[in-house]
């Protein structure tokens, strides 16, 4: 038992904070993620994460906590994406890609300038890959409140989002303001990405968003079960990740612990692979469905 829980794990202050904040953020991310994957907006979620990187780097440059940078740039990008609107899918992906390129270029610049003018070591690494054990206490209330707001938004919109995924035409015919709902969801997504970026880094936040959700969608058939399963998987990944990272503190080779984000991401993707490899029986599989599957497999975008 001593080897599973290294001494001091249960009494460590930073661990407590990490577990508490991590749990809230993991749940938010997973729930938002279920709708993100269902709506086919995984790439948008990833793009927001990259743009959040720019925000975090910029915040670092001007000496402000990363979270505000992630949030400001993420929300701004979400608003901009909504303004551009839903155009032809390929054109939109290329445009998003170019914007990402510029944003990442800016992030490179901000990080470079930031490291010139500041004395914090490892800042780049923290912004890119997270720092759950060194959360700034003053930001914790803001993190919790943001998480609850994002969760509340998505829960309130849940039925409408599902109906729109089923058929945007039916939703529109019943008076659902499809565009406004999409915009509100994108904002919740931006907030969720900013939160995950704080604990596992901007470039990896996609893992907390997509992984548990994608896994849950393979396991659960109903919306309620999908959301609960995703949240459970996300929380499990965070707890195990925190535990392993704490335990790894004295592990070779560097003696300063392996990154939490590595454990979290590996656990999440590993969990997904387990469900992926397990051959699921599809009782109603028909030729039409198989054609659709083949079509989807042909063009990773």
């Amino acid at each position, binding site marked *: 038992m001593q080897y599973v829980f290294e001494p001091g794990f249960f009494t460590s202050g930073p661990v407590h904070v990490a577990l508490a904040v991590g749990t809230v953020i993991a749940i938010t991310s997973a729930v938002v993620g279920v709708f993100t994957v269902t709506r*086919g907006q*995984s*790439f948008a*979620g*990833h793009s927001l994460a990259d743009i959040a990187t720019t925000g975090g780097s910029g915040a670092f440059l001007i000496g402000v906590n990363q979270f505000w940078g992630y949030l400001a740039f993420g929300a701004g990008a979400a608003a901009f994406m909504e303004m551009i609107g839903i155009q032809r*899918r390929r054109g939109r*992906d*290329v*445009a998003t*890609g*170019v*914007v*990402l*390129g*510029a*944003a*990442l*270029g800016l*992030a*490179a*610049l901000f*990080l*470079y300038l930031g*490291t010139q003018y500041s004395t914090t*070591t*490892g*800042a*780049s*690494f923290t912004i*890119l*890959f997270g720092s759950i054990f060194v959360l700034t206490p003053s930001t914790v209330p803001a993190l919790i409140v943001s998480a609850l707001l994002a969760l509340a938004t998505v829960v309130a919109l849940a039925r409408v989002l599902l109906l729109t995924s089923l058929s945007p035409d039916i939703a529109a015919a019943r008076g659902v303001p499809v565009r406004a709902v999409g915009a509100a969801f994108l904002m919740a997504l931006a907030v969720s990405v900013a939160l995950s970026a704080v604990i596992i*880094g901007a*470039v*990896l936040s*996609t*893992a907390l968003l*997509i*992984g548990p959700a*994608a896994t849950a969608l393979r396991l659960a058939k109903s919306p309620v079960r999908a959301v609960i399963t995703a949240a459970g998987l996300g929380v499990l990944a965070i707890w195990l990740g925190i535990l392993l990272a704490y335990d790894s503190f004295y592990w070779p*080779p*560097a003696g*300063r612990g*392996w*990154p939490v*984000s*590595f454990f*979290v*991401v590996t656990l*999440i*993707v590993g969990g*997904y692979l387990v469900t*992926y490899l397990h051959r699921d029986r599809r009782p109603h599989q028909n030729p039409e469905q198989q054609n659709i*599957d*083949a079509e*989807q*497999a*042909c*063009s*990773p*975008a």
Partner: protein
Amino acid sequence: MFTGVMANTWIAATAVAIIAGVTGFFAVLRGSTFAAHAIPNGAFAGAAGASLLGLNPFAGLAVFSVAGALGIAGLSRRSRSDVATALTFVLMLGIGALFVSWSNQYAQEAYSLLFGEVFGVSTDEVLPILGIGALSIAAIIVMFRPLMLSSALPEVAAARGVPPRRMELAFLLVMALATSMTVPVVGALLMFSLMIGPAAAARSLTARPVLAMALSVVIALVTVWTGIMASYQSNWPLGFFVGILGAVFFLAGRGYAAARRRLAIRPA
């Protein structure tokens, strides 16, 4: 600026730009923007691991990149493609983060692998870059017609015996090999910018495939050369210039296309 160490930089960067222009043209044509973003990150993990474990760096790079491409293609069989790409992407980055964290210069190394470190190219790094680059271009030339057909008209290609899934895998593998060499120079996160920006701009300028591909290469070259000069003068990271210039050329291309449409509508 053009002698000694910098000579290697210019050669390597030129090779990188040509590779980026060619593979980028197909990536944009096939709508594989996300894959183009994800695949170089396999190289990030490979490079980090290689430098750490003292392995032959290029073997490490190639192995991880190819693993990434196989991962995306493999997962896409039973999942949505964007989910497959996202998960492969983060796994590669996560492993890379682990390797980087083991080194003593972890912040610096993470930064340079992700955003580029063009000024550290040594002579024995230039040759593999040129070699793999030439190989990738040769592969694309050999595959050119079936690749064009399956990119533009997938159903027709399938009917003619060009299986789309296999073509996709082939393309991802070429992209993996090609970008694996370029990551130490331009950086994993910015390589995709060099692929997508110039290619997208070229497509706005012309619809003819070979001309578009040539223009992609030209614009990529201009981007990289300008970037190197600017980076040399200002010490700012090359990745910054590549990202911004990519966006500038893309917008310029769109502006040109819009202006041409407007002129065509106006009565002569």
